[in-house]
């Protein structure tokens, strides 16, 4: 039986300073975090002890790329009361949501991250000299061949052979962009093509190999980083690096909900047909560069299919998979929206302008172009592309669409506001977040899988959290509220 799909999203935001002689992204990112986070949380260290980003899921401990990783040791990194991590990584501010048990909670926490970054912009602005401004974009490319990531993480069983993940997940990941793409004007990188006016994915221009450990160069469709942040005997954490950062709540919901479902099927060895694409790296790009969604790609078995065809096959498997299970409300909604979306993509992709990022942006840019009589290639269109991802509610084009009732949302603004300070209740993020909010002054360090307390005893007290579904409100909620101090908390946990 598949393990519960505990999941999270980590987003690197694009950052730029205006009105300065030289933009220093690390300085600007640190300023944002430092001006937003309260001193009591800032003194709690991120514990790197358990981090092994170079461990490879294929077994070998690879040394390649050493110079590109782990360079953030000295940079700002804080843990928030909602259980999230907020830090500087690769010259970008990065936000990792707390662990969520389902796609809907993840949408809420992904949006809470946006609000936290937007709040940081507002607080940092107060300390900036007049004329100086920091801007943030939740996208994945600067349009000049530089990309930054939005990675998803899914808890998986250690028992699932990695080769099954590669063969059965790759076709799904390559084709899901028809609903997860954030849209992009033009193309870039080594395969740049002037003929490409618009494409579905922000990231497709940047992937070069099928499987690998790297994330910043020679990017692979399937990343092999083996860093479970949980019991390594039982679990792996699948690190999905090819997705776009989404503004649309529905795109994020579908992206994580469908992927979690496909991963469960892979764990349960349920998919018995061979869906492998011959040449998945080039297919990823071909599909991205066709907004009609009609391009066909060659499968290993000789068939040629569209991305939507292949998605139907995964959906049909999913429906069979769920047929004899008790299906929870979120999963049922994932399947329902998945089916509606594929139907609409097949007849008229533009009919999804209220739901999907790439369609909403495409429609907006086309309308703008038509009204103003602009050619493709006009910088104004690239500017609208960028401005779509501005996370300020009063400035971002995505938020203009929401505000004018032209974009559907999935969760309420109140739920998002709550998640800025409240962790999910049903994962270990609850323990991490509540421990921080109550006992920050007695915590020296924390990480995804441990909280280290200084209770005044001779030794520091480490509370390991190797099970992502333990430490929930149901099990420790009362204790988190009633403990007198950290010593009392640690003592009662161990009792």
């Amino acid at each position, binding site marked *: 039986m598949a393990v519960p799909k505990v999941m999270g999203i980590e987003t690197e935001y*694009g950052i*730029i300073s205006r009105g300065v002689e030289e933009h220093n992204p690390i300085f600007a990112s640190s300023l944002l975090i430092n001006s937003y986070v309260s001193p009591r949380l800032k003194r709690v260290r991120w514990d790197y002890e358990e981090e092994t980003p170079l461990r490879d899921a294929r077994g070998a401990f690879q040394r390649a790329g050493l110079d590109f990783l782990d360079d953030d040791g000295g940079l700002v990194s804080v843990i928030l009361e909602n259980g999230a991590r907020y830090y500087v990584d690769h010259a970008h501010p990065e936000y990792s949501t707390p662990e969520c048990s389902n796609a809907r909670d993840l949408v809420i926490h992904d949006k809470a991250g946006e609000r936290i970054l937007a709040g940081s912009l507002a607080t940092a602005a107060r300390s900036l000299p007049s004329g100086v401004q920091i801007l943030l974009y939740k996208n994945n490319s600067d349009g000049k061949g530089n990309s930054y990531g939005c990675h998803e993480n899914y808890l998986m069983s250690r028992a699932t052979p990695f080769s099954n993940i590669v063969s059965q997940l790759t076709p799904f990941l390559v084709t899901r962009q028809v609903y997860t793409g954030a849209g992009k004007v033009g193309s870039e990188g080594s395969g740049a093509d002037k003929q490409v006016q618009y494409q579905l994915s922000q990231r497709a221009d940047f992937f070069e190999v099928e499987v690998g450990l790297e994330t910043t160069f020679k990017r692979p469709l399937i990343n092999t980083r083996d860093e479970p942040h949980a019991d390594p005997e039982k679990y792996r954490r699948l690190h999905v690096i090819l997705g776009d950062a989404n503004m649309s709540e529905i795109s994020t919901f579908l992206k994580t909900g469908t992927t979690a479902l496909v991963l469960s099927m892979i764990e349960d060895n349920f998919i018995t047909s061979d869906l492998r694409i011959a040449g998945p790296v080039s297919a990823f790009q071909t599909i991205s560069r066709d907004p009609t969604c009609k391009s066909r790609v060659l499968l290993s078995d000789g068939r040629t299919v569209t991305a939507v065809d292949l998605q139907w096959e995964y959906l049909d498997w999913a429906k069979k998979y769920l047929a004899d299970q008790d299906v929870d409300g979120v999963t049922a909604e994932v399947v329902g929206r998945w089916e509606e979306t594929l139907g609409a993509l*097949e007849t008229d992709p533009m009919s999804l302008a209220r739901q999907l990022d790439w369609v909403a942006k495409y429609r907006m840019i086309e309308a703008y172009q038509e009204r103003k009589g602009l050619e493709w290639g006009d910088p*104004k269109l690239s500017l609208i592309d960028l401005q779509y991802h*501005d996370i300020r509610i009063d400035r971002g084009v995505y938020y203009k669409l929401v505000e004018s009732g032209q974009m559907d949302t999935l969760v309420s603004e109140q739920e998002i506001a709550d998640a800025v300070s409240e962790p999910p209740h049903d994962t270990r993020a609850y323990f991490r977040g509540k421990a921080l909010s109550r006992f920050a002054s007695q915590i020296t360090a924390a990480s995804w899988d441990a909280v280290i307390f200084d209770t005044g005893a001779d030794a520091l007290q480490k509370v390991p959290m190797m099970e992502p579904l333990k430490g929930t409100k149901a099990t420790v909620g009362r204790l988190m509220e009633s403990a007198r101090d950290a010593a009392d908390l640690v003592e009662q946990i161990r009792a």
Partner: protein
Amino acid sequence: MSEEQKRRRKTEQGSETEAEAPVKTERRNSDQVDKLITEIDEVLEENAEEFVRSYVQKGGQ
């Protein structure tokens, strides 16, 4: 009935509903788009070319 046929049937019904009042819907959409374009012009940087050129990021993950 195969899955494929079911999907087709659903789609055909969908287009009939949409076709009910095309003129009215089009005008409303067009007004909405005009309003939105005005709002977008308000949030766009004045010098698009300069701004787009200056937006350069260090690569990340």
